[in-house]
């Protein structure tokens, strides 16, 4: 195939553009008396050679990054069924409201009485998340899902320590996302893995065997990363609670169950939310995110400081109620970061909750589950299921995991090849090789904001790739062909890492 225009483009970094002396910034004039440099900052503390930042004009910057942006695939341009990531539509209304000066230019140390709007928003968001999760106490502070997990495990520790217990084990199923075990280690505890049963849920035998008084917590996703709702969840909760451990809910898959069932009602003690998944915070190519947590009453005393509270007003200000930060939490695990969390993400999540309301959130989850099941059914109708069977169960929740083993054996193409070939068809591939226990896993999450037409076209594309591969597997094995770059040598990158522009 001949090169596409983007493939022909010379790849230069911003540091390789521009010329000595070029610039965009115009420094405000020195409006105060000039003072000798030495007097302001002695030579010993001064930098001699300035950092070699780019020297570029504003038009060069714009053109550089606009062109760079075109080398990205994005949700606004195409279907992005990346399992576990909930790539739902990012409403632009949210960007508009987040950009209002009253939100974006609000200093985090502004007096609470002069930040009542922000505090009210946080308080309302706390309330909504509590209601959605069925757990009444919320901290908005964590910066992402994994940060919420860390908070959760530290809360569990604090809870046990407060009871004089030093439990060191945390149970995680083998389907768990990598952040779960990594978090456990960072929190100073030890991972104990749980097996998965034939239905895709937790192997109860294994759980019973491992649930002892050393267990601090069981971390679970439900529906889990197989897209399977663990029907035994009440029994699991029972087992875990019987040994005095807590039950942690990884909320990455909340999009399946909003308004349908609630972690609190299932028996979970702690849940984290990914506002950048279920609640439309755009992913930004890898963040920002936000990972609030909600907890049951027995965990509440340990929540990070501060939390947002509403109080009756003492009357000075004319309002009935005032919102404030509460720092007086003697049993708190402390802070997880500076200030109060990713407020900009709160604005977007709150706007989303306001837009959808109670019914809309439930509709969203219903549509997410309907879309996933329809896509699965469509793939079956097209005969794809023979080569890519569903790993577990018959139906699925908001996502499903296919097993690429048969495809690999019959067509000699791997899941990776299928994924890369999808790029040529204009799709972002599903998540691949996760969860680990499924051979050649392909994890598909269409989300509720996609149309039936898109699902139909995507299913047809998969079918077409398989048909094509039966004839000529090289097409997939060498895919992608039409992307700005083709397959990249990751091994070389890791072996001799070049992680900055040489200057």
């Amino acid at each position, binding site marked *: 195939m001949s090169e596409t225009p983007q493939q022909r483009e010379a790849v230069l*970094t911003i540091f390789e553009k521009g010329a000595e002396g070029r610039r*965009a*910034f115009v420094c405000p004039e020195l409006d105060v*008396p*000039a003072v000798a440099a030495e007097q*302001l900052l002695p030579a010993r503390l001064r930098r001699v050679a300035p*950092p070699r930042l*780019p020297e*570029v004009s504003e038009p060069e910057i714009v053109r550089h990054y606009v062109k760079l942006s075109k*080398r990205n*695939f994005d949700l*606004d*341009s195409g279907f992005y069924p*990346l399992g576990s990531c909930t790539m739902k539509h990012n409403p632009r209304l949210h960007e508009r*409201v987040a950009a209002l000066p*009253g*939100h*974006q230019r*609000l200093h*985090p140390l502004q*007096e609470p009485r*002069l*930040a009542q*709007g922000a505090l009210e928003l946080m308080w309302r968001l706390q309330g909504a998340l509590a209601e959605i999760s069925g757990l009444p106490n919320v901290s908005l502070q964590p910066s*992402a*899902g*994994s*940060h919420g997990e860390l908070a959760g495990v530290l809360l569990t520790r604090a809870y046990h320590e407060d009871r004089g217990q030093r439990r060191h084990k945390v149970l995680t199923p083998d389907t768990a996302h990598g952040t779960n*075990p*990594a978090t456990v280690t*960072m929190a100073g505890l030890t*991972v104990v893995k749980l097996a998965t049963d034939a239905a895709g849920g937790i192997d109860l035998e294994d759980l019973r065997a491992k649930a002892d008084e050393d267990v601090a917590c069981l971390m679970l996703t439900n529906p889990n990363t197989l897209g399977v*709702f663990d029907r035994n969840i*009440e029994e699991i909760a029972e087992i875990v609670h019987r040994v005095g451990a807590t039950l942690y809910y990884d909320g990455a898959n909340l999009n399946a169950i909003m308004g349908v069932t609630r972690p609190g*009602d299932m028996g979970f003690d702690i849940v984290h939310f990914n506002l950048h998944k279920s609640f439309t915070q*755009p*992913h*930004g*190519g*890898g963040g*920002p995110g*936000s990972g609030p947590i909600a907890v049951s009453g027995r965990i509440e005393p340990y929540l990070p400081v501060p939390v947002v509270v509403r109080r009756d007003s003492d009357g000075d200000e004319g309002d009935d109620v005032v919102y404030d930060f509460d720092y007086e939490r003697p049993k708190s695990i*402390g*802070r997880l970061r500076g*200030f109060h969390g990713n407020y900009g*993400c709160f604005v977007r999540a709150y706007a989303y909750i306001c837009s*959808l309301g*109670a*019914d809309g959130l439930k509709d969203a989850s*219903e549509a997410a589950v*309907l879309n996933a099941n329809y896509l699965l059914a469509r793939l079956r109708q097209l005969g794809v299921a023979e080569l890519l069977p569903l790993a577990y169960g018959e139906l699925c929740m908001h996502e499903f995991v296919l097993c690429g083993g048969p495809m690999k054996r019959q067509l000699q193409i791997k899941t990776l090849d299928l994924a890369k070939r999808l790029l040529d068809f204009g799709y972002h591939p599903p998540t691949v090789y996760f969860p680990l226990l499924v051979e050649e896993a392909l994890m598909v999450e269409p989300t509720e904001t996609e*149309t039936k037409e898109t699902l139909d076209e995507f299913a047809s594309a998969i079918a077409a790739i398989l048909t094509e591969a039966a004839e000529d597997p090289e097409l997939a094995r060498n895919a*992608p062909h039409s*992307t*700005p770059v083709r*397959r*990249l040598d990751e091994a070389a990158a*890791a072996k001799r*890492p070049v*992680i900055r522009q040489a200057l």
Partner: protein
Amino acid sequence: MSRYTAITGADREQMLAAIGVESVEELFARQVPERLRLARALSLPKGMGEQEVYEHLRSLAEGNVSSEDQISFLGGGMYDHYVPAIVDMLCERSEFLTPYTPYQPEVSQGGLQAMFEFQTAICELTGLPVANASVYEGPSAVAFAAYMAKLYNGKGRIVASAGLHPHTLQTLHTYAHGFGSEVVEVPLGEGPEACVTERQAWLAAIDSDTSAAIFAQPSFYGAVEDAEELVALAKQGDGDPVVIAQVDPIVLGVLKAPGECGVDVAVGEGQALGGRLDFGGPSFGFFAAKQEYLRRMPGRIAGETRDLDGRRGFVLTLQTREQHIRREKATSNICTAQALNALAGVVYLSWLGRQGIVELGELLLARTHYARQQLTAIDGVQLLHERPAIRELALYLEADVAEVRRRCIAEGIDPGLDLQALSGREADRGGLLLAITERRSRQQIDALASTLELALRACWRKVAA
């Protein structure tokens, strides 16, 4: 159909038929035990149209007094710098705003190259050879660095200067309690050492069990530390701790780079670099280090490589450090970080440019100096320290700071933060910390001086009465 969904009645029928179920209800009924199903609607307000949501969020925004509405000298970790329009424009492009973490590098070269450029800029700023693509924000970046130090040398003791931001110290305590290290705080000095790390105590606190020695540059009080000396004191020979500096990146055009001072790891809060205030987040944390820490760093790292045809390209590299590969053995648990904010950072730094970052630093130095002179000329205002200050100034007021603040705010000027209210330290009583950015003109500084003077007098009159 609710907002943003598209399933019409006809769609639904066809879809259910294809699935082979009667209803959406059945889909759930067959998977989620009946007992667990929420039998009522969520107790949340009804959904609203776009216009109503906009009006509601706008009225909440109007419940805040932002830096657009008052002259604010608040700093203490986040700063009211001017963010150029190109930052917004580029970050709002769908292609940067809406993708996930770049798991498919062939269609993520934009984001990956931007990360690579960001890493380069951070290396240049800090004078260190390696940097990652971002961590959450400033204080937790310090905690991540301390964790890395522990992974690196296996020791269990962290020495931390009291010159660190209180939020940093608190965060460090929270994390360290988790990963099982002890945190020892080194006090600030007095006299010429006021507001910076007390050197003797620093020296004394660091022993061969010390995993990490951490200080802030400048200190929370805006005082420039003698970083070289702190490093020299910490590194006495064998078994040295990892020396970590939390640095304010915007001053690194004029302030000696951490790398030049011998620091091992430089981390910090990136908000000053093209970020919004956003009531505290999202922003980004940066993380730079000496080469030997590369394979133990947390977070994403973009690396350069070639494609099949030899084209230059970028990938996420050294992923075996990370949770999705290494799971419980990962160098951290971080997954989603702050890519978009980091993009804003590198766009901002490109806009500021090689000359600009120096010019801006000089401007801040000069204005801060001016503010120092004007404000300390006021009766009842003293300097808290004699160290150089680049863009943040700590003063002592002979009055109740909360009341002085109230009076100034009523005049439309926030004079800076009440040190003691933030730090909780008794020693900070009477302290006011104020930040100067390029948005705070001489005229505004003059206005602050006169407002502050009047406020002080009014406080005294009240006390006298």
